[in-house]
C-alpha cells in the first residue's frame, strides 16, 4: 500500500526554549498507520534555530521585518512574510505531491493523538482548537477559529467548550489541509487588495478556499485542545505543569 504523505510545516520566528517544546510535541505525535510525515520549516529571521533541525527540514527566509515578541503586534511586513512562507509550503506540497499539509504554528503544543483525530475527521480543512487570551482584554479567551470577518470572532464560541467537531469559516494555528486545497493552484495565503482583512493570511486562505471550492468542508475539532504558548506567562505555566507531570 502506498503511504499517504503529510507535510508538517510552519513559518518560524520563535524563541529557542519554546521551539524546543514545540519540536518535542511534534516528536510525540502518533502517526497513524498508512501515513508518513515530513517536517519542513521556514525560519524567518532566526538562524539560531538551525541547530535544532536536520538540513532537509528547513529553509531560511530573511527580510527586514521585525516582530514584537509576546505582544503579537504585527506590521504589514510581518503579514507579507507570513503570506509568502505559508504559500511556499503549500506550493512545495503541490509540487512534491503531498496528500496533506499540517500547518502547526511554532507556539502550539499538540496532543499526541491530534493528527490521528484530524485525519479521521476527513475534511478539506480541519483545525484542532486552542484558546488564548485577547490582546485587548485579558478576560476574553478566544478560540483559533471564527465564522466570518474579524469582528464576528466574539460570537458563537460557547458551544466550542463541548467536545465535538463544528463547522467554522476561518481556522488558524493548527490546520490540516487536504488534497483539494493543495491541488488548487489559486488557493494561497496572499491578500486580495479589495479586502483589508485578507492581509491576515489565514483569512485569505479561507476566503479563497470558500470561493474556489463551493462545497468546501471546513471544521474545528474541539476534542483534544492544543496548548498555545501565546505569551511569556503561558510558557512559564506550561513548564511548571510539565514538571508536575514528570
Amino acid at each position, binding site marked *: 500500500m502506498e503511504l499517504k504523505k503529510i507535510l508538517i510545516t510552519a513559518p518560524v520566528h520563535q524563541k529557542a526554549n519554546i521551539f524546543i517544546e514545540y519540536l518535542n510535541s511534534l516528536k510525540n505525535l502518533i502517526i497513524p498507520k498508512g501515513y508518513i510525515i515530513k517536517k519542513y520549516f521556514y525560519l524567518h529571521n532566526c538562524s539560531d534555530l538551525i541547530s535544532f533541525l536536520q538540513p532537509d527540514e528547513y529553509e531560511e527566509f530573511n527580510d527586514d521585518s521585525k516582530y514584537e515578541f509576546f505582544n503579537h503586534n504585527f506590521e504589514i511586513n510581518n503579514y507579507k512574510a507570513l503570506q509568502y512562507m505559508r504559500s511556499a509550503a503549500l506550493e512545495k506540497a503541490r509540487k512534491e505531491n503531498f496528500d496533506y499539509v499540517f500547518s502547526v504554528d511554532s507556539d502550539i503544543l499538540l496532543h499526541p493523538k491530534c493528527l490521528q483525530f484530524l485525519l479521521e475527521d476527513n475534511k478539506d480543512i480541519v483545525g484542532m482548537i486552542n484558546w488564548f487570551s485577547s490582546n485587548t482584554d485579558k478576560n476574553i479567551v478566544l478560540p483559533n477559529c471564527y*465564522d*466570518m*470577518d*474579524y*469582528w*464576528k470572532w466574539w460570537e458563537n464560541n460557547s458551544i466550542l467548550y463541548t467536545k465535538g467537531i463544528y463547522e467554522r*469559516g*476561518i481556522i488558524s494555528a493548527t490546520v490540516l489541509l487536504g488534497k483539494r486545497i493543495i491541488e488548487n493552484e*489559486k488557493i494561497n495565503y*496572499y491578500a*486580495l*487588495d*479589495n*479586502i*483589508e*482583512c485578507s492581509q491576515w493570511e489565514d*483569512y485569505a486562505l*479561507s*476566503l*479563497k478556499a*470558500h*470561493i*474556489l471550492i*463551493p462545497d468546501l468542508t471546513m471544521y474545528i475539532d474541539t476534542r483534544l485542545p492544543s496548548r498555545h504558548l501565546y505569551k511569556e506567562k503561558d510558557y512559564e505555566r506550561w513548564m511548571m505543569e510539565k514538571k508536575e507531570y514528570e
Partner: protein
Amino acid sequence: MKKILITAPVHQDAKIFKEYLWSLNRLEIPEGYKIERYFYLHNADNLKKFLKPNEYEVFKDNTEVKQSDITHIWTQENFSAVAQMRTKALEYARENNFDYIFSVDSDVILHKETLVDLLSREKDIISKIYWTAWNSEQPWIMMPNCYDGRNEKGQIKYKDGIKKYKIIGTYETGVTGAAILISSKIFNESLINYYPIKVLLTSYWEDYAFCVKCKCIFPEIKIYIDTIHPAKHLYRKEDYDNWIKEEKQLWN
C-alpha cells in the same frame, strides 16, 4: 460581430425607466459590435409594455425595496434577489456566447459615448463613473460608484481619497458596478457570480461579492473605472425632476 448583452435587474418607476431606455437607445455602438438587451423585471410587470417580448423575463418574489426621499432601504431579501438576477444574466451571456456584458442599473442615464469609451480601454472589467448623494440630508457628500476595498469592519475605504476621480482618466479601483462592462473571460468562468461569500459578511453587497471573486479567480486582472463622460444617477425623485427640467436638454 462581437455581441454585447445590455442587462439589469429592474424594479423601477415607469417614468425613470423610460428615461433609462431613452439613454440606452441613443448609445453609440462601435463598428463591429452588436447589442442585445435582456432585463430581469423584478416584481415589475408594469414595465413589460416598454420592452419587446424577447427583451425580458419576469422575476417574482415577495420582496420590495422601500424608498424614502432620503435614501433607499434594502433588506437581505432584496440583496438576495438582486444577486440572483445578476447571476442569471452572467449565465445567460455564457450560454448564448456573448463577448461582453454591459450591466447598467435601471436608474443610471448614460452618456451616448459610454460604450465607445469603455470598449476602447480594452479591459476585462471597467465601469463608467457617476456620483451620488446617498443621503439627501447631506447633498454635499457625493460619492462615486467605486471604492478600493472594505476594512475589517466592512467600511468602504479609499487608499488615496476620491479627488482623483474628478479628473478625466481611467483608474484602477477595487470594487465597482452599476454601469459595468465585463468581458467573456470573466463570465465564462462558472465560479464567478454575485452570491455572498460565506466568510465575508458585507458580501451581501452583490457588486462586492462579484469583485472579490474576480480578484480571487483571476489574480492577474485589474478592475477599472473610467471618468470621462460621467453617467447620471436618478437616485431619488428630486434627481428625476432636475433631470427632466434642466439637465436632459443639455444632453441632447
